[in-house]
């Protein structure tokens, strides 16, 4: 790290609790180590000294023991009333959430320390030299600035709540310690991601969270579908990571460094809109499309719902998937030099928001609705950071973390209750299908009210958190249509202002659909008659307090999170632009570059009109859903007819998965097997050249051997002819 940038020790934060910032990731890492050890101790049974001895001898009893244990694991859920809790459940429940509570406390300490000092530069803490190679002097450096502070607070805060929720949700799972080990490890990598002071270190976290996501999606790995989903998530993410890698190569070759601060410094010296800045930004964005599930790499996120629901809440809604947004905001300097890339980001974000919302309209699985909603909302965030409204994007990231975590945990609570009811009655119906729910509001009122709070927030009803952030994004897009570097650039021949108008339109359309599908989800789940089944109904009851408690906290945040960044228009209700001021040192300059130096300005009248439109759309969406959808008309999943036409297309997600499979996966495997392996490797190289040359040698040998008749007489004749020839040759030469 550039020492001139931050004289170590001289930084005002060095005298505060923030000097312990390196402990932030280490706490969850410690949790991972403890829980991981406990998981191994609980599950493992060291084998006999001589593994080649087959199971007939002394190992016979062992074999039976294993078989029995296996049967217990696999069928425990179905056959027994309450499986005993894991033997280490107590200590794991203490350590798992405990380290997050400690980390959150430390994060709060850092936050207040940061508020109390004036800091001009980010606070850098170098732990050790990491890759000191040639010109690449990479250190393991943590970078604490307002942006990473916001992320750290979200990760540790929301993460803490979700850990606590998990204590209840996962209590009967035989893999309880393993679950918390993975979850802790995830938080560790996520903190490394947001605190990383260089792109490679950020990339460590970036891939690390992907790894944890892989492990947690495939947590119940005995189901092939779950293992498939985990693998798909990892591989699709790797496609994005390829982009990230190439972006790093470009940075190192052209800017000579991979430190975030140095890159930001050097990037602004690049020519505005030049090829290098554009290429770096676009490749970085390819990384984002993978991690943050944007077109064309969004396909893994809906499948990722195979993991436990708290995982969906933490990783696939609140934190990991927003890493792409964070990365764009973190690289604001680079993006602000590449308007074409910015337009691409905004357009891809808007298209994703729209496209995912249409799919969300027709999903029956409650988690799938939320998954597509997440993809759609991430699209919004990218619209925000794409048009250079970094604060708006990050703001939406934060509010989304609140309300989407709440929605997922709420749905988790619903699934938990549904599952418990089906479990009690040995029913094998789908506990996540909304057609099997209905009328749950009377059985679980707390969850019901909190979920409505989050729904109103995501739909953009005024004074709920989502309203502020979504409105700010749409307002920023509108403001940049006329006066910005984006408006002057062209994307694929289309003028930037037109692109921005399209983005704005798509944003409004998505907002409408968001209101519709969220209301639809609420109606089908909580309203109307109950479709769970006669036998199951008595078993429906509110989830335990350890699960509803975190929900209440998230409900408050979802409702009032908008106060973080109140627009000037509503200055009456709170301090104006809190987050804006907070992030100003990090992204302010880059944002101004996009808006040509002037703060984006809309007249009061325009602003009121825009807000009015947004409110109208949200209300219209909810009203439309309430009027058109009839929960009473639904029948349980097993009695439902297959859908047709456009419904079928939407229900099957436009058949994109099938298309990718046919276009990329199968051809790759086919070409690899038939052409490369059987054709080139076994056929040409081995068959023709290697074994071919052996065959050739053998053929010559065979020809020579045919001269050997084995008849001594022939040999004698040949000898005689030879002697005569030689004699003749010597005599008559």
């Amino acid at each position, binding site marked *: 790290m550039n020492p001139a940038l931050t004289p170590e020790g001289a930084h005002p934060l060095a005298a505060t609790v923030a000097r312990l910032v390196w402990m932030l990731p280490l706490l969850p890492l410690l949790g991972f180590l403890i829980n991981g050890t406990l998981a191994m101790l609980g599950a493992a049974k060291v084998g006999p000294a001589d593994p080649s001895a087959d199971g007939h001898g002394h190992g016979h009893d062992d074999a039976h023991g294993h078989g029995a244990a296996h049967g217990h694991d696999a069928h425990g859920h179905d056959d027994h009333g309450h499986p005993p809790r894991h033997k280490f459940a107590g200590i794991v429940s203490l350590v798992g959430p405990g380290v997050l509570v400690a980390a959150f406390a430390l994060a709060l300490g850092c936050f207040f320390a940061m508020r109390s000092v004036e800091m001009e530069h980010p606070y850098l803490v170098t732990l*050790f030299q990491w890759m000191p190679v040639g010109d*690449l002097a990479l250190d393991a450096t943590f970078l604490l600035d307002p942006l990473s502070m916001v992320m750290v607070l979200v990760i540790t805060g929301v993460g803490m709540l979700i850990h606590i929720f998990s204590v209840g949700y996962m209590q009967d799972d035989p893999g309880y310690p393993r679950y918390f080990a993975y979850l802790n490890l995830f938080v560790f990598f996520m903190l490394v991601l947001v605190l990383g002071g260089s792109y490679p270190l950020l990339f460590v976290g970036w891939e690390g969270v992907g790894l944890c996501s892989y492990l947690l999606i495939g947590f119940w790995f005995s189901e092939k579908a779950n293992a498939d989903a985990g693998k798909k998530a990892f591989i699709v993410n790797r496609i994005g990571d390829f982009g990230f890698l190439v972006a790093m*190569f470009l940075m190192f070759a052209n800017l000579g460094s991979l430190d975030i601060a140095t890159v930001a410094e050097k990037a602004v010296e690049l020519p505005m809109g030049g090829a290098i800045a554009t290429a770096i930004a676009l490749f970085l964005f390819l990384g984002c499309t993978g991690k943050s599930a944007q077109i064309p790499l969004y396909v893994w996120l809906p499948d990722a719902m195979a993991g436990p629901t708290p995982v969906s809440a933490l990783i696939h809604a609140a934190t990991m998937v927003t890493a792409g947004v964070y990365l764009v905001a973190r690289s604001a300097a680079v993006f602000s030099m590449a308007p074409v890339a910015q337009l691409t980001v905004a357009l891809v974000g808007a298209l994703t928001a729209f496209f995912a919302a249409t799919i969300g309209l027709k999903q029956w699985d409650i988690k799938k609705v939320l998954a597509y909603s997440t993809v759609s909302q991430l699209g919004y965030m990218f619209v925000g950071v794409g048009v250079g409204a970094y604060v708006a994007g990050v703001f939406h990231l934060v509010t989304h973390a609140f309300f989407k975590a709440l929605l997922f945990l709420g749905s988790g609570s619903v699934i938990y209750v549904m599952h418990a009811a089906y479990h009690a009655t040995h029913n094998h119906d789908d506990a996540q299908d909304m057609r099997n729910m209905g009328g749950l509001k009377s059985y679980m009122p707390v969850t019901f009210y909190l979920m409505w709070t989050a729904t109103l927030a995501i739909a953009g009803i005024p004074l709920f958190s989502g309203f502020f952030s979504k409105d700010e994004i749409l307002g920023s897009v509108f403001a940049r249509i006329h006066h910005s570097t984006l408006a002057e650039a062209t994307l694929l021949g289309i003028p930037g202002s037109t692109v921005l108008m399209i983005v704005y339109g798509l944003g409004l359309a998505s907002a409408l659909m968001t209101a519709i599908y969220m209301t639809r989800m609420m109606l089908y789940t909580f309203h109307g008659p109950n479709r769970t089944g006669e036998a199951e109904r008595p078993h429906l009851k509110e989830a335990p307090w350890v699960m509803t408690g975190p929900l209440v906290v998230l409900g408050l945040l979802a409702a009032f999170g908008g106060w973080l960044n109140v627009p000037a228009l509503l200055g009456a209700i709170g301090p104006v632009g809190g987050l804006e001021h907070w992030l100003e040192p990090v992204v302010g300059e880059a944002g101004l570059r996009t808006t040509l130096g002037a703060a984006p300005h809309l007249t009061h009248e325009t602003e009121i009109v825009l807000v009015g439109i947004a409110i109208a759309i949200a209300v219209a969406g909810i009203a439309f859903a309430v009027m058109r959808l009839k929960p009473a008309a639904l029948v349980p999943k097993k009695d439902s007819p297959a859908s047709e036409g456009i419904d079928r297309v939407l229900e099957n997600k436009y058949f994109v998965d099938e298309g990718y499979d046919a276009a990329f996966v199968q051809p790759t495997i086919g070409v690899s097997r038939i052409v490369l392996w059987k054709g080139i490797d076994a056929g040409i190289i081995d068959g023709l050249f290697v074994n071919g040359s052996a065959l050739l040698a053998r053929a010559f040998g065979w020809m020579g051997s045919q001269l050997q008749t084995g008849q001594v007489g022939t040999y004698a004749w040949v000898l005689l002819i030879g002697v005569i020839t030689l004699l003749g040759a010597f005599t008559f030469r």
Partner: protein
Amino acid sequence: MTAFLSSINYNAWIVPVLLLLPVFGAAGLWAHALMSAKDPDDKRWREVRLLAFGFFLAEAILSLGLWWSIDPAAAGWQAAVDVPWIPQWGIRFSVGLDGISMTLVLLTTLMMPLAVLGSWTSIRTKPHAYYTMLLLLTVGMLGVFASLDLVLFYVMWEIMLVPMYLIIGVWGGERRLYAAIKFFIYTMIGSLLMLVAILYLGSEASRIAGAPTFSYDFILNNVRLDPTTTLWLFGAFALAFAVKVPMFPFHTWLPDAHVEAPTAGSVILASIMLKMGTFGFVRFALPLFPSAAMNPAVRSFIIALAVIGIIYGALVALVQPDFKKLVAYSSVSHLGFVMLGIFALTTESMQGALMVNINHGVSTGALFLLIGMIYERRHTRMIADYGGIAKVVPIFATILTIVCLSSIGVPGTNGFIGEFLVLVGAYKTQPIATVISATAVIFAAAYLLWALQRIIYNKLDKPANEAVKDLNWREIGLLVPLLIAIVWMGVYPKPLLEKTEPAARRLVTYVEAQAGKAAPATASNTAR
């Protein structure tokens, strides 16, 4: 530590001792074979494996001092010993180390005990011969890394072939004879041309020196040949090394040899023997013939082969039904990264290449050990015969996952550091090749995770797998050092990087300077 080592004059005797100890070991095993001829077989193989392990352990412990005693920054050879061997022809027993060869020597001496432990219970036929072969193999491998005389190098290079041929051919799987002969002839053809080149170089050097010599240093500093000859000699060396690496399209011996070899054979092949090919490029082909190696056409050709190897190895690995074969093809892919790093010729990529060398030795060695362990229990290597075994063998599953992640190159493991350095460095001189190669991060994840899923995840639906027992303490104990290495080199690679940096930097500078001198026209291509 350094003070203690110099007080016992460690550098003066360590290399010859490392080379001789296995020979004594082989003699010891022979004595044991004679003395215990009347004992029951069961007793004999238990004794002989202990004896052999003792020698390997002693070798490993003795060699550890090299980490401190070799000063990577010093110019010239460390721990050098130079005595006449065949004076009539000027052939000397001349050995010495630098930072690069020191890391490879340590890799060898440290992997060998683990390889022996890995075949602790699986080798019961002709145990004396088996361990003798392993000991002789060690001599050859260490000799290759330490030789500073071209003839000595060649002898060591060829010495290894015989034990490995026997290890595959006697203790191997069903098609062991085919694999052994293929391995032998493949490598032999390559190295015979190298012998011709060595003799040519020697005669040139002797002419210049006025006395017969095959000294590496002398040839490096004095022999200057015309471009055409250089090209031919480089070709002869490069072919020998390319077969060993192995580079596409000379790789087809590798899957067969790996699959048929016993566990220890596969481990040694992957961890160490392949490294001799890349080491050959770094130590001989590049510095001896810089102008040929940096000739734009030659360089593009080799880089193209490296890139093909990376992608092709990964894609073919994707569709292998046999896990061992899958890992073998993944080696082709990984070693492609090493070649790319070497021929991209930047300090970063060279360092990365050396790092991948070590990483591949650790991770792929661990993979083969793990395959050997599960094979010993289930007697099948077919991926389709497994499934869901994480439930019955959680320790195995956990370790396999970690090692696979390292092989994929997930950050936080050693695999990432090496690949990242290679790519980030190579991009400066070979942008297109680098970007193509970087797609291998996708394929690597695809083939390993897919295999992982089919082995340890999914449903436990095959009855034969239900009784499989988990790893025992010996197996855990031998894997733990590898796991520690994986994480250590991934999190804090600096100590290792520091050991190779000066040598790598010198090499890059030297080759660039020499190539620039020989052919100014290519300067723009190699300049950074």
